[in-house]
């Protein structure tokens, strides 16, 4: 029996060891290294003799910078609006696609709707760059043909922000739709049938039966999407590059620019750690919310 235990222990080390070692070398060490750097004044464009220990001064510098707070507010505003639109559109699509009136068309459309979600963010940005292009873009073409004025999408604050939200919603709603379609399947058909016989309207059925059943999926989507949206980088970087000015600079792109445009890797690391803290706080909040929902 004892020999067996020793064999098992060895097997456990052989199976789990490689991953633990890998994560230690490629995740834990870089993470600690990053924290170390965040305590130094460190500019990769300057001679290494200029590296100087500054304690938590980098953190203070980030937390007192207007750029950081501007981008924080915009990132949260962006995330909240994107998630709300995700839910509204995703739910509409899911309800429409779930009705069994046009089954074959439904299946085809489900595949088509899924495409935006699989496309690389940079391609999404490229596609929409064509759509939003000020003179020859399709959107302005439509506006002009309706007798309206052209909008210079990327050189004014509000249009640029709207454009970013549109693109994010376009790219991420398909996932919400697919999850909600799975959610709608968990609503027992008999219950809806019974309600129908009792003369409940469509809205009453949805409000009183469907919604309570899919509530936990909605919470899941809100959590997933929100945590994803506050990390937004690719689309902002490629579509507007933070502009005009820094109106569409997200938290991630602001920190990225600190480290790789201004070469202040110390400050950038401090910013990255503050970003990490914000993410942990948000996850904790959602976990609390999910816990309350269960009880």
């Amino acid at each position, binding site marked *: 029996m004892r020999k067996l235990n020793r064999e098992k*222990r060895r*097997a*456990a080390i*052989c*199976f*789990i060891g*490689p*991953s*633990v070692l*890998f*994560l230690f070398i*490629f*995740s*834990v060490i*870089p*993470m600690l*290294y990053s924290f170390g750097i965040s305590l130094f004044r460190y500019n990769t464009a300057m001679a290494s003799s200029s590296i100087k220990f500054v304690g938590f001064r980098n953190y203070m510098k980030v937390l007192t910078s207007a750029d950081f707070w501007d981008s924080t507010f915009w990132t949260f505003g962006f995330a909240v609006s994107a998630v709300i639109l995700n839910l509204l559109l995703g739910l509409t*699509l899911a309800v*429409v696609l779930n009705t069994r009136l046009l089954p074959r*068309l439904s299946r085809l459309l489900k*595949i*088509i*709707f899924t*495409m*935006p*979600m*699989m496309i*690389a963010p*940079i*391609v999404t940005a490229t*596609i929409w760059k*064509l*759509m939003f292009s000020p*003179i*020859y873009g*399709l959107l302005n*073409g*439509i506006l002009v*043909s309706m007798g309206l004025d052209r909008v210079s999408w990327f050189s004014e604050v509000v249009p640029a922000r709207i454009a970013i939200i549109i693109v994010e919603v376009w790219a991420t*709603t*398909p*996932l919400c739709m697919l*999850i909600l379609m*799975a959610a709608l399947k968990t609503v027992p058909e008999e219950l809806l049938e019974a309600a129908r016989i009792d003369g409940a309207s469509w809205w009453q059925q949805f409000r009183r039966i469907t919604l309570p059943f899919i509530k936990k999926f909605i919470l*899941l989507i809100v959590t*997933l999407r929100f945590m994803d949206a506050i990390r937004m980088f*690719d689309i902002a970087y*490629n579509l507007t590059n933070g502009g005009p000015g820094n109106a569409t600079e997200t938290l*991630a792109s602001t920190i990225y620019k600190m*480290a*790789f445009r201004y070469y202040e*890797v110390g400050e950038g*690391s401090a*910013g*990255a750690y503050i*970003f*990490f803290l914000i*993410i*942990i706080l948000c*996850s904790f909040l959602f976990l609390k919310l999910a816990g309350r929902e269960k009880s």
Partner: protein
Amino acid sequence: MKSMKKKRILQSIGLGAAFLVLGVLFIFPLYWTVITSFKTSSQVFVEKPVLILDTLYLDNYIEIFQKSHVMTFFKNSLLIAGGTTLLSLILASMAGFGLCRYGFKGKKTLQNSILIIRMIPALVYTIPYYIIYNKLHLLDTLAGLIMSYISFALPMAIWLAISFFLDIPSEIYESAEIDGCSEFKMYTRIALPLVKAGLAVIAILVFVGAWNEFGLALVLQSSDAKKTLPIGIASMVQTHKDTPSGSLAAAGVLAMIPAVILSMATQKYIVKGTMAGAVKG
């Protein structure tokens, strides 16, 4: 009864209209990109958009193949995403099996640490990777990028693997043990075949993640010979400030192809994976 029927028909018409509007909204940007890629520049630069083409011009595709390194980018992306997927799958399935099969002190702590590592934003890693890789001469190499992508993917992959291995009842292992089956054989012969579908889910999520990744590759890869498709396209957009829309669209279409194929084949798995990762994670 007649009014019921009428209501049904009206409902169908309403639904059809809803389909149409939503379908157009979601699909039109893709359609527009595809047709733009087949236009001549005189068709692109008109104030009234051209919506339907009678002839398809291939000039844009010829141009990007001749003037840029699209094929190199494509090959790099394939190698990097493939390598990342394969290695992550091996490591994660072993770890997932080990964490489900054996009990030991500190197991809970280990699992929770993996969960926390998963939450760390990529930016926390990007800066140290840049500095460390620079010192180790791993900057601008495919191997370096694969290693860092595995470290991004592994926490999620292990977490998913655990959830799939947990579905295997422990009696199966016990009876195999009585038959004198070694621990390694238990993993290869018994456990792996039972979680095949789950491994497919992990593979798809890891592959798509690595295929689409942008931020880290942007920092680590600098030469055209080592760039992946996403940053290759981004640099095409940025170096020629006024890249002709046509060739931009053509590059976009090329990069879309794997996504389109994957989305047709695998959407079921993606939902499964995302939900398993979120619910059990």
